[in-house]
């Protein structure tokens, strides 16, 4: 909770912990995540696959399968209201109206045997109590608004008759049907090709400007982050390892993982005219999380301490925090330079 507290956040998550019980044991998929996003702002949740970013948001939506999943502790306030631990009926009232979500693959996210218009109208009928005819008319408006040509005709079609980009627009239209205050977008553009990606992202921004909703954008594409985000939270092994404004993350990275991430992303790396460097090794086994920093074994900055102790969340700047011992006041790096440039430089300094 480092954000400005002068007004209520649209969505704020505090110390969320989620476990999955599998045959192999208990996986601690989310280990104390805290996030917050303000109305009209976009928070990008960044990290490699399996780091827990989707699980975090799905848990908030109540979409993780229970069992095997289980929310161990934590809270999530939607417009100041606790939504974790809500009864299924209450949660259903919130979902789709106050908070909605769009998913990665629009092809599979829509029911293949139901008309697009019906699928959008369904939300309206459930949450707004609209009659089918009205809801359908509204669905056409929504489709129109998401720049789908011949919306009235399109509403009568089935998902397989749409192209990928069109479908994602339709999904967005569906998510926006009830003017939610928070929109969670789980890698909304990964399945689309580049030109379409831009169109979709543009659409989202435009709607955000008009509606003033908060967006949580889950992605591993730093390019998308740069275009869209106001705030960024970097997740690794079920934890937020760094968070701050988009500038903080891009220009003043305070965690070796963020740095590694940047160097492995083509779009960012190219911009820096640097070499593309993948992060060696693999993330820790979350069946038995290491006692120290999860990134320790892959980190070129690793210190003795990192192996044995979890780093605390350390404040780097106002609104910029990092979960890394390097930011400790006793750390030699901290003493020399607050921000990490790149691995080579650090080692050179060493």
């Amino acid at each position, binding site marked *: 909770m480092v954000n400005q507290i002068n007004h209520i956040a649209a969505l704020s998550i505090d110390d969320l912990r989620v476990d999955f019980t599998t045959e192999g044991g208990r996986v601690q998929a989310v280990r104390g995540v805290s996030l917050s996003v303000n109305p009209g702002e976009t928070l990008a949740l960044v990290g490699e696959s399996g780091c827990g970013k989707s699980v975090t948001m799905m848990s908030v939506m109540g979409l993780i399968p229970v069992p095997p999943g289980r929310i161990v502790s934590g809270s999530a306030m939607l417009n100041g209201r606790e939504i974790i631990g809500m009864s299924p009926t209450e949660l259903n009232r919130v979902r789709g109206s106050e908070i909605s979500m769009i998913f990665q693959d629009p092809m599979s996210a829509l029911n293949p045997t139901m008309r697009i218009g019906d699928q959008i109208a369904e939300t309206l009928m459930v949450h707004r109590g609209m009659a089918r005819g009205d809801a359908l008319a509204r669905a056409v408006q929504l489709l129109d608004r998401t720049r789908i040509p011949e919306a009235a005709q399109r509403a009568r079609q089935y998902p397989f008759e749409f192209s990928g980009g069109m479908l994602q627009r339709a999904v967005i239209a569906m998510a926006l049907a009830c003017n939610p205050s928070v929109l969670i977008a789980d890698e909304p553009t990964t399945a689309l090709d580049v030109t379409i990606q831009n169109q979709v992202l543009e659409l989202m921004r435009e709607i955000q400007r008009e509606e003033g909703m908060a967006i949580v954008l889950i992605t591993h594409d730093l390019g998308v982050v740069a275009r869209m985000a106001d705030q960024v939270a970097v997740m690794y092994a079920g934890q937020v390892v760094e968070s701050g404004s988009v500038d903080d993350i891009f220009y003043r990275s305070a965690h070796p993982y963020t740095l590694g991430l940047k160097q492995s992303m083509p779009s960012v790396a190219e911009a820096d005219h640097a070499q593309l460097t993948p992060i060696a090794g693999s993330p820790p*086994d979350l069946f038995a999380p290491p006692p120290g920093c999860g990134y320790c*074994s*892959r980190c070129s900055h690793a*210190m*003795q301490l*990192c192996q044995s*102790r979890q780093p605390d969340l350390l404040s780097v700047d106002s609104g910029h925090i990092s979960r890394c*011992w390097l930011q400790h006041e006793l*750390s030699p790096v901290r003493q020399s330079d607050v921000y990490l440039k790149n691995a080579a430089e650090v080692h050179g300094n060493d």
Partner: protein
Amino acid sequence: MNYSLKADDFAPLEHSKSAEQLVRPSLSYWQDAWQRLKRNRRALWSLYLIAGLLLMAFVFPLVIPLDPEKQDLTQVSQGPGFARTSLIVETRPWEGRYAAHQQATETRVTGLRVFSEPHTESVKLTWEPVDGASYYRVYRHILKPSGIADLGLPLGATEFDDQVFYEDRLKLKTDTYHYSVVAIDGAGQIISHDSLAVSPRHATSLNDAVSRGLIEADTNDRDQWLGREVSLTWHLLGTDQLGRDMLARLVYGAQTSLFIGIVAPLLFVALGVIYGGLSGYLGGRVDELMMRFADFVIALPFLLFMILFRVAMGIESGESGIFPMLIALVILGWPSVARLVRGQVLQLREQPFVEAAQLMGASPHYLIWRHMLPNVMGVVLVSLTFAIPSAIFTEAFLSFIGMGVAPPTPSWGAMCNDGIKSFLSHPHELLFPAVLISATVLAFNLLGDGLRDALDARMKG
């Protein structure tokens, strides 16, 4: 921050290589599948059960001598139980007792009694003559008769005018019987009747005992055995309608049923793999033709043609009928496998690793053995596991309608057929084979489910 940190803590860490290694060992496809199968407890138990059945069918008879064809007519349709003893008796026809009716004073049937000790080889009845009777009818009931229309089995009638005896030899057991004698007059009208309860003891005729080897007697002093007790063969699971040991028949029936159930699918799956693989591999026009033919065969109504082929091939004397059924199953079974394999092969041909191998100049032989087969194996294995229960079912069904194996070859289906008629009176004759069929089919089904999950083989098409 309530713990103190030292400067040493911030010294750089040297990475050791081993720490980076992932803890879990890497497994091959098959090892992995096996691991997953082992974790599926139902599938694992099914595997044990199948192994047990196979052991029972093919190893058990080698260890313990069992004779599925040995009949014991003194122990027919007996339930599971313990060994018993039997009295050796002589079975010459009874000369009987005659008394003229003319001198009869009684107007009712009286003096009904058994003559000598009643045993399961014969119960001898005699009674006093009735005035005006022209003959007598003899009935036998398992309950106490409640009236003239409820006397039980009509055993027969006396043949001669003055005959006042009857010898019952009809399937006697060591139960209590209620005999009734009904006197009939010249016009066929009933004069009167009387009943008597009799409990015969178990007995074996001398001839039978000799020919079944219960007693060792040379020709001269056989008679010394008369009146002695011998112990009979013990039938753990009881006997069938010819007094044959159920256990032995179940074991040998398992041989038939499992043989057909396993060998036929093996054969037609193999044929299907070759046909389908070839078709998929050759592709084009040949593929189209080959598949069209397979479609024809699939279109044949399965059960009708099973019966037709089975009859068409016929069974010669002394043959068990296993072979024609096997052939019929193979003829009708292969196309679905062929279709499946062809689909897989077509898919595989497009896979990058196969194309890569092709580009690198791998021979077709190598391609098929190294790339195609291992990848097709999963699907094939699963379809084999599901083909087995259906083959066992088919065998059972055909044997049940009398189109299966030829007697006396035991098979579970044929045993069901024998047992179903006597289900109410001797349920074990149907129960045992039916349970075995069900258990086997169940085990193969569960194993198939397990294999499908473990191999992640999607059975579509």
